[in-house]
């Protein structure tokens, strides 16, 4: 019954006119920017973050969450209409979704994505309601040693589950941790690596890092070879799926939702894994395997559901452990901190209205998505047609003025340029930017817990292995590294990521 009371509190928070309005604005804004080709959810959220900073904490976080699933949904729209997925999880949707669009069935493909997302979003919200409180109760017993080990596990697992070179990804994490040490030391107040620049005392802003690594670096890559974008806009008539379509997508949506809800909690590319996995499962179960790759509606329904369920449940580790499983959640963590709230097990008890309001608003936001996006599809198509020669300078000036406005600090803008160049170079050399951002955001947390744990243990490093929970977490981290490095498992992992795309 406690649950009903909590949900009531959440409903009254989420349904207040102001929060409802900003949830709506967030969803629409997120979709609008997410639709723009070449901007993934991470860059979208980083660019729109400054817009939310003047709001009340609850309202700001509700709006940000709205931007997040709006951007997610907008990415699928782009994937279906022009076969240019904004991020890897939408790549699966693009395979059959774009084929459907070319066959004149863009409408049903978009509607399927919307319906699948809504069902998945609803179920995943229930998962959060049921699982977040008990997990937070466990985490409340954690001390600094446990949190240190947990952050180590989170960082390493995010590497093990991602694709690409493991050593490079580990190096990117450490590099991110190092950039996170820039600024005043929390214990002594000594400014570190600031070269005497006062503006750097508060550290490098995470928005600058995210916009640089995910926004600017991406623009530089796009300008190398301007891809010709072929928009399929002629045949967006007959939006609604047929009765036969509905019959075909029901079970795939259910399977995708379950898979996504489970995998979303994992650190790293849980949602990518979920959408790829969902595609494989549907292909295996289908009696019409030959249709896959040529516009099978199941291949849109299931990965979209999986993707969105995972996007939603990835809030669980953030809200209960303070551990962001992927870059977007790392940005959410930064947003929480800017509003004076440290994500973690205390949020549920200390800020119940915020926690439950945010959770309920996720469902409300998903409802907005499904109600709004289908009627507004004409506007999204028009946004898609904005030429890149206008789009990329717009991203750059919006990023500059938005980041400058954070603290009226020009160094935030210089940092965008620095991280854009560094990100571009490293991406060209085969390094993924996501681990760097995770390391950057978690760096101060990791150092704080390390130093606190060692003060408690009087400098004895064995505290991390003698405390049982901490020891188990570290053992899991070692296991994650082994999984990533061992050749046999590694090959299978490559298969999971590659098989369906080729």
């Amino acid at each position: 019954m406690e649950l009903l009371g909590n949900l009531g509190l959440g409903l009254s928070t989420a349904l207040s006119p102001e929060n409802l309005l900003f949830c709506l604005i967030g969803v629409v804004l997120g979709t609008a920017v997410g639709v723009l080709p070449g901007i993934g959810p991470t860059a979208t959220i980083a660019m729109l973050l400054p817009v939310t900073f003047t709001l009340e904490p609850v309202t700001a976080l509700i709006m940000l969450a709205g931007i997040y699933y709006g951007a997610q949904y907008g990415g699928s729209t782009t994937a279906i209409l022009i076969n240019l997925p904004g991020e890897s999880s939408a790549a699966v949707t693009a395979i059959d979704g774009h084929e459907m669009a070319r066959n004149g069935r863009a409408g049903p493909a978009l509607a399927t994505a919307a319906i699948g997302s809504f069902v998945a979003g609803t179920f995943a919200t229930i998962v959060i309601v049921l699982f977040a409180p008990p997990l937070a109760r466990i985490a409340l017993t954690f001390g600094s040693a446990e949190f240190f080990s947990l952050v180590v596990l989170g960082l390493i697992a995010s590497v093990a589950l991602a694709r690409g070179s493991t050593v490079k990804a580990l190096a990117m994490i450490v590099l991110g941790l190092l950039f996170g040490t820039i600024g005043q030391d929390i214990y002594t107040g000594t400014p570190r690596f600031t070269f005497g620049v006062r503006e750097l005392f508060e550290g490098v802003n995470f928005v600058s890092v995210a916009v640089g690594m995910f926004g600017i670096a991406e623009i530089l890559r796009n300008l190398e070879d301007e891809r010709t974008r072929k928009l399929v806009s002629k045949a967006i008539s007959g939006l609604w799926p047929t009765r036969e379509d509905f019959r075909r997508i029901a079970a795939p949506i259910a399977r995708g939702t379950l898979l996504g809800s489970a995998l979303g909690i994992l650190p790293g590319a849980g949602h990518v894994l979920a959408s790829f996995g969902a595609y494989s499962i549907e292909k295996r179960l289908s009696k019409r395997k030959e249709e896959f790759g040529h516009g099978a509606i199941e291949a849109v329904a299931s990965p979209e559901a999986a993707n969105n369920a995972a996007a939603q449940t990835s809030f669980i580790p953030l809200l209960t452990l303070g551990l962001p499983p992927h870059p977007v959640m790392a940005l959410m963590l930064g947003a929480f901190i800017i509003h004076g709230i440290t994500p973690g097990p205390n949020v549920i008890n200390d800020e119940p209205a915020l926690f439950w309001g945010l959770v309920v608003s996720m469902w409300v936001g998903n409802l907005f998505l499904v109600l709004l996006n289908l009627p507004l599809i004409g506007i999204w198509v028009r946004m898609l047609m904005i030429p890149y020669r206008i789009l990329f300078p717009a991203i750059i000036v919006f990023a500059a003025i938005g980041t400058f406005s954070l603290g009226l600090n020009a160094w935030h803008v210089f940092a965008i340029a620095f991280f854009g160049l560094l990100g571009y170079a490293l991406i060209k050399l085969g390094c993924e930017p996501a681990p760097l951002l995770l390391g950057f955001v978690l760096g101060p947390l990791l150092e704080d817990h390390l130093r606190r744990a060692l003060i408690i243990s009087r400098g004895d490093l064995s505290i991390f292995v003698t405390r049982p929970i901490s020891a188990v977490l570290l053992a899991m981290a070692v296991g994650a590294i082994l999984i990533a490095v061992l050749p046999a498992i590694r090959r299978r992992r490559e298969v999971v990521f590659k098989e369906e795309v080729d």
Partner: protein
Amino acid sequence: MPEVRRALKDLLAGGIFVALGLAFALGSLDYEIGSPLRMGPGYVPLVLGLLLAGLGVLVIGKGFIAGEGEPIGEVDWRAVILITAALLFFGLTVRGLGVIGALFGAALLAALARSATSALEAVVIAAGLTLLSVVIFIVALQLRLPLIGTWIPV
């Protein structure tokens, strides 16, 4: 030197990691290191810097053993330089020229980063984006930024 070509990507990536790792480690020596019990501000950066340099060496080593061998590909230097210049220009002039001047200059530099965009087109794009940004950030979001900066006598 076929080995070097095959390992080039890893060689450069590893080189960046080693250089940055050592830079952080050396820099941290300026601060108090302390002991595990009483860590000074330099302790964590020193350990992490050395760890990064070590990982960089591993990346280089791996490159020689099993380099990916894919070419790095072309770099569009015009875009790299002009986009960096656009951001620096904005940061350096936003107070002096004010928002309008800084936005216009940054947008112009950015628009020119794409070589196929003509100068006239870039001016039109920059003017449009300046107007749009002022409407969004100053009018709609009410950011308190001076439209005209201190360098310009009114």
